[in-house]
């Protein structure tokens, strides 16, 4: 039984999260401030922590720092602070994911699942064959043209697969629309065509939890697309 600790000073939000996660079969521990969360963590076997930043007594950032002193469990920060700087701070102190309020419940559930899979069972997927590429939770098996995100298979069309493979093979390199077109279709790009952009969007919808904030296939606006090597 997977235990998830949810910590937020707003009781209704905690309750709502409990409802969603219970439906997925997780057992929920509830805390309403940082200290309470730390105490519960100390007495229970918790697999994942969802925590707000702005809380009484001990805020989420400090709590994360303390937890990271002895534990490496996945921490998802759930905050109304949506600035880039807030996100960077949260991830830097040791959080695994950052979800801004108001959040999409399905996205939160997906992220919880993703983090749990990576934390608990990802290691088993490794070492299948040589033609396998992995970036974070994204795994591409080129032998059987399969794509896994956090261990779950994703179905891609051949063109989508080719584009994803091209980007994964060249981690960090930014491909412009024309370059992708020339690489995939093997012909010169003539005129304006938004085919590539549409494909990219489709790929993102399939492999990303929130396509607007992609973890893998990133848009460099005005330049092109890329997949970054894991930090």
């Amino acid at each position, binding site marked *: 039984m997977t235990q998830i600790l949810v910590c937020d000073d*707003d009781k*209704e*939000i905690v309750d*709502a*999260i409990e*409802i*969603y996660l219970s439906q997925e079969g997780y057992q929920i521990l509830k805390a309403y401030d940082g200290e309470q969360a730390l105490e519960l963590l100390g007495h229970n076997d918790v697999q994942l922590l969802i925590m707000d930043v*702005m809380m009484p007594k001990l805020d989420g950032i400090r709590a994360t720092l303390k937890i990271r002193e002895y534990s490496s469990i996945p921490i998802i920060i759930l905050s*109304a*602070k*949506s600035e880039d700087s807030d996100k960077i701070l949260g991830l830097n102190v040791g959080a695994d994911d950052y979800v801004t*309020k*108001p*959040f*999409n*419940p399905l996205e939160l559930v997906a992220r919880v699942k993703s983090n749990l899979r990576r934390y608990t069972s990802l290691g088993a997927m490794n070492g299948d064959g040589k033609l396998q590429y992995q970036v974070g939770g994204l795994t591409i098996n080129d032998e059987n043209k399969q794509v896994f995100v956090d261990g779950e298979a994703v179905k891609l069309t051949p063109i989508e697969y080719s584009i994803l493979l091209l980007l994964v093979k060249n981690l960090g390199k930014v491909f*412009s*629309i024309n370059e992708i077109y020339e690489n995939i279709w093997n012909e010169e790009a003539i005129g*304006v*065509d*938004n*085919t*590539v*952009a*549409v*494909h*990219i*969007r489709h790929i993102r919808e399939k492999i990303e939890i929130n396509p607007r904030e992609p973890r893998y296939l990133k*848009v*460099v*606006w*005005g*330049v*092109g697309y890329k997949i970054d090597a894991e930090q």
Partner: protein
Amino acid sequence: MKKGKSISVFRRLGLGLVQHIVAAIVMVLIASVLFNSFLTVTTMNGPKIYSLDPLNQKSSFEDSEVFRDLFQTAVNDVIRLGVIREQMETNHKFDASKVIDVTAFMKRYGTAGRNYGEATAKFKMEDLIIWVRYGLEYKNRTMSLSEFVNYYQEACIPENYTVDDYGNLTFTGYHEPEEQDEQYAQKYEAILSKMAEYTEAQLEDMAFSYVMSKTSEGIALNKEDDGNLTVYVNSLVFRYATTDHQTQLYDLVDGWPEFIQLQRNIVDASNTLAENYELYQNCAKLYAEGKSNLKYVIRMRNAEGEKDMFSNIPDLAELDDEKLTEVFEENSKYLIYYPNSLEIMGNEDFTEGNVFELLRAAHYPFLEDVYIWISLDTSYEVKDDAFSIASEMYERIVPNTAGILTILIALLIIWVGIFLYLTVTAGSVYAEDGSVKHYLNAFDKIWTEVFLCTIAGFGYGIYRIILYLRQMTMTVYETRMSLGSGAKNVLLTQYGLYAAVGFWFSVLLCLLWYSLVRRLKSLNAYKNSLLRLVINATYGAFETVMAHQSSLISVLLPYMIFLMLNFVSLIGIILFQDPVKRAVLLVFLLIVDVAVGIRLFKKNAEFNDIIDGINRIRSGEVEYKLDTGKLHGMNKFLSDAVNNIGEGIDNAVKTSVKDERLKTDLITNVSHDLKTPLTSIINYVDLLKRTNIQDPQAKNYVEILENKSQRLKDLTDDLVEASKISSGNITLNLEVLDLGELLQQTIGELSEKLEAAKLKVVAEIDEKPSLIYADSRRMWRVMENLFNNICKYAMEGTRVYAEVKVTDNAKVLLQIKNVSKAQMNIHADELTERFIRGDSSRSTEGSGLGLYIAKSLTNVLGGNFEIQLDADLFKVNIDFPLYQQDKKE
């Protein structure tokens, strides 16, 4: 350490009083020295005054300068007296009826070597003396021309003439005729031949003209109208007959020359006698037997050529030379003169030359026959003569003087000491905390100029008082002189006057001096001065004129004055003849012109500074301040105004920035607070949706709730974004990006949405790379907002035209055109205002901030954002400067 410099007021006053009393005493002492430092003695020539130098006195009277001078005077007197006695006495008695042969008298006593002629007349001595007393009278006598020529000897001899450079004969004065020999003829050949050309009358005329020009000796020539010459001679009117009972002089003489000579002898002899008679009267009394401590014997030749002895002690005349010398040597001061000995016996500083001089001055002819014995009895048995009086006074004054002077100096030192002490401490008092304060009294606060005038007046007063004191001292002295004895009767009031003067001098001097010191110490000599008042007033007036708003006054008036100065100076330079005045004016003019030039230059420099300041403020350096301290007049005014404006702008900018920031903070915080309940709303709406709702109505409501809560979320995000952009509170990550690529990405990204809105996008992208330098994520935001806007408001089923173009003037242009769904009743500019939407009902979704954010971000990134409305055609133009790689690197 400053404690010593301050004393109490009472101590001050006490010391001051002591000081003033000391001054009074000093003045009394000075008065006593002054009153007693004169000696008056009677000599043959009248009273003689000696001032005793109180600082340089020998203890003994006989060693003093006064004594020496007195003795010399006495010797002088005695020698003259001897000569005069010889003239006037017969058998050592005054003989009024002594017969004087004037020519013989003049030969004996007149100027040696001079020709006094042979003609003579004899008078009784008293007649001659009285004659002079009543005055000599003259009348004109006429002389014939022949007599005149005879008197002046031959005129027409060659010796009297020369031939001048022009060949004319000229009379050069009377000369003795020379012997007429060969040499003579040769010598005067030219003159003689020239003289032959003139008539006798012409030659005489020349001589006459010469004499006319040099009339002398009481002879006046006059040419009458008929051409005849008249000669007038001043001839003495006889008051007394001669001893021969002659009353007409020309009976005694032979011709005019003798007449004139004799007349002159009479006049000279009479005058000499009259003069000597006065002296005789004085001296005979002064040096008479028993009236003087001086005794003398003079032996000389009398008129008859016999040896005669003159003495004030008749007995001594009987003794022979050696005996006389013995007698005279007994006294402590003596002088014995033998004509044939080069040495003078005596213990005073006399030489043979001195005696010679004295005898010569007395016009005595037989110097080699004069023997003189003079001695002084220094026991001063005779009480009233000059020596005894002088000795008495001297002995009385001199020892006292030294003592008085010592006291005087001591008192002066005391006075100066107090003066210095009070000077150092003037104007300082202890404050209650023990510190020293400088104070001023009411007197110190009057204008410095008035104060200085007072000092000047004080100085003048002192000058007048000194004059008065001098006069008074002279009066004292004169009184004493007339008494003929020592100054025993100097009045107490006179000392009192000196004392009063000393006291008040000290009081006034200290009053003024301490005030001056206080003024200087408190540094308010200038502060309190009229000069400062006048300078300030002038400067104020000047400033007022210069800062005057009207250019007529601030520019034209000084300019007119400048022109007038130049004009007047130029006129002066032209008119003045005196080069000094010209030079002064020229220098003045130069100074004025150069000064005006410098002023104009400085003014212009100041003006440039102000312009520089304005430019800096204009270019955003609103904190810049002009240094108004070194500016003047209008410029100061101007720079103050500029500073004020700059300050205002600075404040406004600061306030506005601060306000925006506060607003952003507020909005950010509020949005955080909004988000938490919003999260619950969204979540529970979602949960509600998942429950099994049978009622389709309820399902519809939940749907609406979901939409609106979603919109609320977008609104809060946009709100934060918009406020951040408008407050400039965002950080930009600038990089090179391709606007064409961005357009393609955007269309691809939003393809579903566009399709859902039934819109077809027609894109046209320039073949040239449309590179710009911007923040890619913000640019995406701009594009997203624009296309979202299109999705919301474009007419369904229409085409959207998007074009990216690189223009010739190095710009990248993005133009998006679409047809609006609703009729637009709004101005294009208003569309980019905050919370403005095309439809005023606000019924459609969206925050109303989309276009505002797009425009603001574009501007922040350095681009232009423009919306054009043409009926239903909605056009957005965005342009950025083209990024040129070679230029950047």
